[in-house]
């Protein structure tokens, strides 16, 4: 379509960067309208060009090349470059689409915020960072994007910088991510040490040959590939908020809602999923690493969903849902069903962005009220928000036919077919997770939109549907939340959609086994087959049970939850305290390091070095000189005597044979 596709690739992230810089630096000059016009225009360009690239890639035109040489050191070139294939093209389209929706939505949501231009500048830069991350053809640029999205989330979570809770959350997010980044950086260092290159293609090509290289570790043997995969996965645990590095994500709700949607749907948290999928040629060579990915994912998927049951803040419920869904994606990756993981990433991006923006729509309608206990009955005054939220919820819980159904079902089936250690546990966790997901999702829906309105009279009288800039993105996101699953189900899972970009060894190929279950059907027949099958499969019963239970609890007998909480106070307490991660980290890390630092400073620097060594030396010099002072009597013959003795000593020393 275009003569020089490389320019198109470059234009995609750069348009966002330019818009961000303009909106950031000249925000006051160009005004609010100027800022949102230029950034939305830029993201729209990025989205349009991403579609062009997407179509182009599906026609078979891939690209892998350098843009410029960042530096050369020790014979290793460090490049900035693009790898455009099915995986990156899909990610680019999803990222730029969700970002575009969020940009438009922001006009309404941030309408009367004094930091309007700054916000647009940030979200454009965020989009730029994420695009650079997914388009990278090497580990260096991957790390650039990796850290840049971390920076942007820091700035956006702390956007309202005069709120203590927001700036504390942003610092926490950055530091927890940095813990993951340390692992990631060491993983990159190991890659360079082992392969002498940062280039994906070189590393992937060399990986099978290096698979048997190992080193001794804690008394055992570990292959380098396993070490690299585990180190990189620590990074993914930070970005994609897997237990135990998940603590930053719920707190990130302190940021404005559009950014929650962007972080949770398309950018940042999906970076870890994307990275593991991108590194599939490495992960395939380490069953240990795959098992770890699967088990960590399963723990996150189930236990984080449980916390979602007890949250009162509407955004926090959705946040814990994100954590849980990221766990599902990780489980898929661990089961070598990379395509299913990315498939769920795509569908999740649509319906999670939708749910967040719908929650945001409710929040602004209620004048920044986020507590669901002060909501209720909103389906009448806010029909569009309600309807789209229902669609998002059905997609999330996996109602047969909706987007999430196809992707989540594929994950559950794939993990069932996996033979790696831990797959049994993972299967139970993700299956049970379906019930919990349904329960908290419908709880949210019922508490917010159904039942008796619980807000005060004043708010209740004025509550109305949000303006079009808010609901149009909702509608545009609702469409793929219904259709994306059916659209991508066959090509992505069974149709080799991702081509060479994902690598699966035959013995791990759970999706191939899954395909064997539907031997005959293709096209609509296949979808029909899957949907019908879905209605009689255990996950669907679990989801129905969860929704019915939520209905009983929050519509039929609203007094019931109260009683249950009293009855199971301990469990409720554990969940309310989020298993105590925050407290433990606070004591051990936040306070621990400060105390160690203080002790080192007081003892090491002040007492030991300055007190004893420096000032001690000064004191000794003082004593010695006061002692020596007595020698200086002023009598010439004393000096002459000393000089003779000195001369004599020197002569003996030098004339010694």
């Amino acid at each position, binding site marked *: 379509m275009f003569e020089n596709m490389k320019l198109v690739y470059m234009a995609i992230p750069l348009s966002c960067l330019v818009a961000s810089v303009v909106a950031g630096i000249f925000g006051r000059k160009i005004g609010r309208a100027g800022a949102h016009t230029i950034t939305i225009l830029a993201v729209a360009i990025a989205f349009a060009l991403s579609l062009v690239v997407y179509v182009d890639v599906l026609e078979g035109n891939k690209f892998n090349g350098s843009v410029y040489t960042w*530096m050369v050191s020790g014979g290793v070139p460090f490049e900035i470059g693009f790898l455009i294939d099915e995986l990156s093209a899909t990610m680019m389209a999803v990222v730029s689409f969700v970002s575009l929706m969020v940009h438009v939505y922001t006009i309404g949501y941030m309408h009367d915020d004094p930091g309007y231009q700054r916000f647009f500048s940030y979200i454009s830069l965020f989009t730029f960072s994420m695009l650079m991350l997914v388009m990278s053809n090497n580990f260096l640029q991957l790390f650039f994007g990796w850290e840049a999205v971390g920076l942007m989330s820091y700035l956006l979570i702390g956007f309202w910088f005069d709120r*203590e809770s927001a700036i504390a959350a942003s610092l926490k997010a950055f530091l927890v991510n940095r813990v993951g980044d*340390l692992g990631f950086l060491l993983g990159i260092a190991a890659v360079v040490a082992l392969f002498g290159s940062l280039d994906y293609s070189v590393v992937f090509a060399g990986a099978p040959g290096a698979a048997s290289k190992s080193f001794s570790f804690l008394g055992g043997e570990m292959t380098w590939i396993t070490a690299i995969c585990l180190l990189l996965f620590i990074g993914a645990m930070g970005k994609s908020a897997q237990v135990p590095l998940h603590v930053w994500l719920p707190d990130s709700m302190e940021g404005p809602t559009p950014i929650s949607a962007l972080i949770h749907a398309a950018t940042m948290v999906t970076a870890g999923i994307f990275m593991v999928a991108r590194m599939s040629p490495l992960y395939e060579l380490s069953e240990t690493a795959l098992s770890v990915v699967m088990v960590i994912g399963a723990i996150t998927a189930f236990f984080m969903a449980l916390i979602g049951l007890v949250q009162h803040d509407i955004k926090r419920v959705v946040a814990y849902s994100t954590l849980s869904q990221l766990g599902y994606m990780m489980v898929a990756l661990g089961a070598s069903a990379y395509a299913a993981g990315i498939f769920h990433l795509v569908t999740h991006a649509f319906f999670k962005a939708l749910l967040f923006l719908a929650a945001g729509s409710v929040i602004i309608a209620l004048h920044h009220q986020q507590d669901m206990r002060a909501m209720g009955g909103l389906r009448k005054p806010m029909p569009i928000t309600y309807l789209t939220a229902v669609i998002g919820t059905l997609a999330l819980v996996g109602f047969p036919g909706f987007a999430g159904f196809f992707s989540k079902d594929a994950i559950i089936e794939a993990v069932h077919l996996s033979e790696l250690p831990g797959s049994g546990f993972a299967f139970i966790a993700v299956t049970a997770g379906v019930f919990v997901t349904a329960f908290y999702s419908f709880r949210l829906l019922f508490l917010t939109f159904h039942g008796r309105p619980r807000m005060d009279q004043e708010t209740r009288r004025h509550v109305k549907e949000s303006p079009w800039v808010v609901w149009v993105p909702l509608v545009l996101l609702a469409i793929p939340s219904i259709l994306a699953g059916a659209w991508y189900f066959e090509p992505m899972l069974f149709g080799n959609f991702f081509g060479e970009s994902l690598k699966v060894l035959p013995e791990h190929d759970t999706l191939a086994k899954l395909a064997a279950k539907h031997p005959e059907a293709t096209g609509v027949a296949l979808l029909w087959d899957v949907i019908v099958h879905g209605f009689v499969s255990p996950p669907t019963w679990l989801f129905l049970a969860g929704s019915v239970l939520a209905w009983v609890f929050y519509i039929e007998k609203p007094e019931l939850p109260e009683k249950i909480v009293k009855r199971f106070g301990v469990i409720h307490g554990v969940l309310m305290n989020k298993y105590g991660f925050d407290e433990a980290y606070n004591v051990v890390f936040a306070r621990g390091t400060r105390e160690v630092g203080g002790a080192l400073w007081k003892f090491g620097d002040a007492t030991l070095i300055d007190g004893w060594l420096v000032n001690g030396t000064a004191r000794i010099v003082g004593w010695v000189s006061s002692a020596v002072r007595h020698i200086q009597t002023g009598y010439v013959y004393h000096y002459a005597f000393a000089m003779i003795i000195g001369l004599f000593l020197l002569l003996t020393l030098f004339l010694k044979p």
Partner: protein
Amino acid sequence: MESNLLSLLIWTPIVGGIVVLAAGGETRAPLARKLSLAFSIIALLLSLPLYNGFDKTTAAMQFEERFPWISTFNVFYHLGIDGISLVLILLTAFLTVIVVIAGWQVIQDKVAQYMAAFLIMEGLMIGVFSSLDAILFYVFWEGMLIPMFLIIGIWGGPNRIYATIKFFLYTLLGSLLMLVAFIYLYQQSGSFSLADYYDLPIGKNTQIMLFFAFLAAFAVKVPMVPVHTWLPDAHVEAPTGGSVILAAIMLKMGGYGFLRFSLPILPDASHILAGFMITLSLIAIVYIALVALVQDDMKKLIAYSSIAHMGFVTLGFFVFSAQGIEGGIVQMISHGFISGALFLCVGVLYDRMHSRLISSYGGVANTMPVFAAFMMLFAMANAGLPGTSGFVGEFLVILAAFKINAWYAVLAGTTLIFGAAYTLWMYKRVIFGVIANTEVKTLTDVNNREILFLTLLAGMVLLIGVWPFPILDLVHASVEQLVAQSAVSKIEIVTGAIR
């Protein structure tokens, strides 16, 4: 190639300083300022032909000048630069201009003397980076301390005398041992020329003793743990400009010394003691970072952060690979810009509120949004964010250290967490939050002069972060030769000839 460019570069600012002293009395401060700016810009312009005419393909010394100075002792006025010197000279010339601009309104007392001190110091520092004769080097090395003492002692804070004396004693002790080493090398080679030292065979034990003599001088300057405690005191008392030059350039003297003297002259001792040096570097990175975390004085915090960042320089040098050494060099340059910028940021706040304590601030972003944006950039650079210069050196050093021993990389890598923790925690308490008090409420945002120097520094930090290629390109040849030099043993040649 015949050239006297280096001499011009050294003596223009020194003569300029004298002119400023002569021309600008107490009453003529504006003239002194303008003259100083003119001279510092001339020096910066003079460094450009140095950059243009520099041949990147060779490790040989360039722009050499050599005249007999003290014939009796074979001392020469011998100048010349390689890539490593060049990048440091460019840094010096650039930052002196910044410091002059930064002191424009802030210094109202003895303006001519203040400006002259910086100009003279610039000349002497460039002299250090371009001396190829040990005595000449020593003269510049000690000479540059005098203006710095004056800057801290005259324009410094209330506890300046203690700080100056501590600084003086620390550095003097180290320098004297270095002089002893020079005299020993002179006895052995009959020359003070560095080139002769490079070829001089030296026995193992002698090398180790000489190494410690040099270490005493260089470790104090870097500064390495445990001889670092002068730095926080000196920074706290120094005026902003003094802190900038101290952190940005004077600390680099130590790093430069390792590359110019320890590694090539004493390759065997360097290898034998590498473990020791790496241990000290890692202690600096981890221990000092923890200490930085609990500082309640912004300048002290940045001073401790400097020590931790300089730990990467020495760590990189003593892994003996091109990546490590180049990483160390980039880290020196980058730290020059970042620490300079951070001290200037503290200066901007101090000029308005006369407090360096973190607890005096809070919510500055509300009243100084432009300043907050600049400081955010520099804070992130200090935390080693990719895209800023702070990342490049640390990244290379971690890559290089990983190849030697993965645990070195793990320990060094903790800077990712601690560096971010102490920098951003300070940033949060100073810049974010609600307006803490009435003084913060009346703060005015940065003026055009402040925007000018912050923009210049921000530009450099981003440029190096996005495209470090040019700096590395300048030093490649020199570093390759250095790696080769430090890999060849000098003990073999001696074989029993030592006493």
